[in-house]
């Protein structure tokens, strides 16, 4: 197995140019997303939500640059947070765990990849993903998400988005090198008085670690990231235990209620007769 590779996204360096989105679309032959307007599918229109006109992940938007505008009440202070979001390629991947067909695999680079010929479009992975990454293709009717440019990685090339990023906000490399870079950057920012700088997914607290982890300047929720997602299988055992208990209670309850009459009715005259 090759070394574990990943993305380290330093959101302080993101300028919101969307070169990563364009590179992703070009390399993966993804079309522009149509949008239904009065029953007709048209090309994207302005969303009115800052510069974010793709709005979210979708079957053709595997990268999504988020624009978060923060203003103080009197609008004298402003912060504009930008973040290029992507599949996190979790170390404990919820989608891979639940996939009933085995279409979702872990590659030799420790990334998570959907095999298109195996996926049958059941959408269990969409339910499982805590980040809302996976969507169903409207043309292929199967689950789609970032492939981490698996084809490029096998040829020794970096993913298209990381290569296109002009500010090194998206950095690609072996995970352990990226973690060192990220830790040094946080220290630097803290030294500059930016105490709110923090890493998201760099340690193993979030799903065992995210192979695409982030440097954020605010709480994860501000960026639309859950602070404590869990693997789905964690809830299977408690749910099953309560169900088994319920099924035993139902079986016993029904049995006793049903047997009550069947036993008593014929016995009653017999016992009277015995007494007499």
């Amino acid at each position: 197995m090759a070394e574990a590779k990943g993305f380290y996204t330093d959101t302080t360096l993101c300028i919101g140019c969307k070169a990563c989105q364009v590179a992703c679309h070009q390399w993966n032959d993804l079309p522009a997303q149509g949008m239904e307007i009065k029953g007709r599918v048209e090309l994207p229109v302005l969303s009115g939500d800052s510069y974010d006109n793709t709005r979210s992940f979708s079957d053709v938007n595997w990268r999504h640059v988020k624009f978060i505008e923060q203003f103080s009440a009197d609008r004298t202070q402003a912060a504009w947070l930008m973040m290029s979001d992507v599949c996190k390629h979790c170390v404990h991947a919820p989608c891979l765990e639940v996939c009933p067909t085995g279409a979702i695999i872990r590659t030799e680079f420790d990334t998570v990849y959907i095999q298109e010929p195996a996926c049958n479009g059941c959408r269990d992975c969409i339910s499982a993903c805590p980040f809302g990454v996976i969507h169903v293709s409207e043309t292929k009717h199967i689950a789609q998400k970032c492939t981490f440019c698996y084809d490029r990685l096998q040829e020794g090339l970096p993913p298209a988005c990381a290569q296109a990023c002009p500010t090194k906000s998206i950095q690609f490399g072996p995970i352990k090198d990226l973690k060192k870079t990220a830790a040094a950057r946080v220290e630097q920012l803290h030294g500059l008085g930016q105490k709110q700088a923090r890493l998201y997914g760099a340690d193993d607290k979030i799903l065992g670690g995210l192979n695409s982890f982030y440097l954020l300047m605010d709480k994860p929720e501000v960026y639309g990231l859950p602070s404590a997602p869990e693997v789905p299988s964690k809830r299977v055992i408690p749910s099953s235990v309560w169900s088994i208990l319920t099924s035993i209670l139902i079986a016993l309850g029904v049995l006793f209620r049903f047997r009550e009459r069947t036993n008593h009715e014929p016995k009653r005259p017999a016992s009277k007769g015995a007494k007499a």
Partner: protein
Amino acid sequence: MNYFVADPEWGGWIIAYFYVGGVAAGSYFLALLIDWFGKPEDRPTAGIGYRLAFPLVLLCAAFLIADLGRPERFWHMMLKSEVAKAAWNAGFPWTSEGWALAVQTPILKWWSPMSAGSVMLGLFGACSAVSFASEVFGGVRGFRWLRNHWLHRVLQVVGCFAGFFLAAYTGTLLTATNQPMWSDTNWLSPLFLASAASTGLATIVLIAWWRKVGSPDARHRLERVEPVVLGLELAVFAAFAVSLGPDLRPVWETWSGKILLAGTLAVGVAAPLLFYVAARSRPWAVPVGASCVLLGGFLLRYGAVTTPGELLARGPAAAPAVAADGTPPGWLDGTALQAWFAPEQTRKPGQPGADPDNRSGPTVTPRSKLPRVAPPEETSAP
């Protein structure tokens, strides 16, 4: 609740599957119970369950396949498609290489409810098919032999367990996700199970009443079981509501959540119980009560499946604000419910707690070693 997830858009087919699967499993289990523990005159009512389960399972399979993005790939749930194709290309079944690959094709991820459920649906289908055949073709010699053979009994027990699994795993399937509400409780699965039992029984009762199957006495015995099942469902429903905790209010504020909570409670449980208690002797009580149970079971599945989509559309802003001191925003709030059941546990300094009226006052005088100072006597004016 995690509001940052994508909606899987499980809709009508999945709701229909959860509902019909529950009825199939419930009626099979009850048929087996009547068959084994009932009197000979109960046998015809058991037959209803056996005749129902298998066709309903076929319907379930059809619903599930229809829901897939690529229905022609439904078999990928059971077999690893790429290994199966490799086995075929290696010359299966004519070559040993083909066989060596073929034995690796079955897929079962027992930690994934959808994978385990696919296998158990197949198992339940097989068992209910045998019961169906021996019931419908009971007169044919081969089936008559099978019906009285011990093997049939073994299959019935296996089918009964598979049925329980089928009824319950649909809830676990929703819980084993990261969707709002679904993943915030462990009680959807028991709730679906209890509902499967009540709707399965209601179906048998309704058909027995409509087609006048079996003796009136046998039918009456069956009707008496319903309140027990409904009572258990009520208890499980209460556990479900409490387990949602602070998420109960945002759930209630959606239309789907109202259907889930009020529909299940009022239509599926309270109304039929009321009819049983208050109007048992009326001729309409049995069919109307059973119909209410069936409708309530459907509302439960409908509400449970559609609520997360509505919650996601409303977003986190729809969640009610909890006051800074932790005071819940209204009566229908999980924390309010928890405060009701564990008042001391949720108490904060200054709040009343478990026994608000029983507190210090003029009636409370602590036992003390200190000499009591008598209140100064009023000096009368000279």
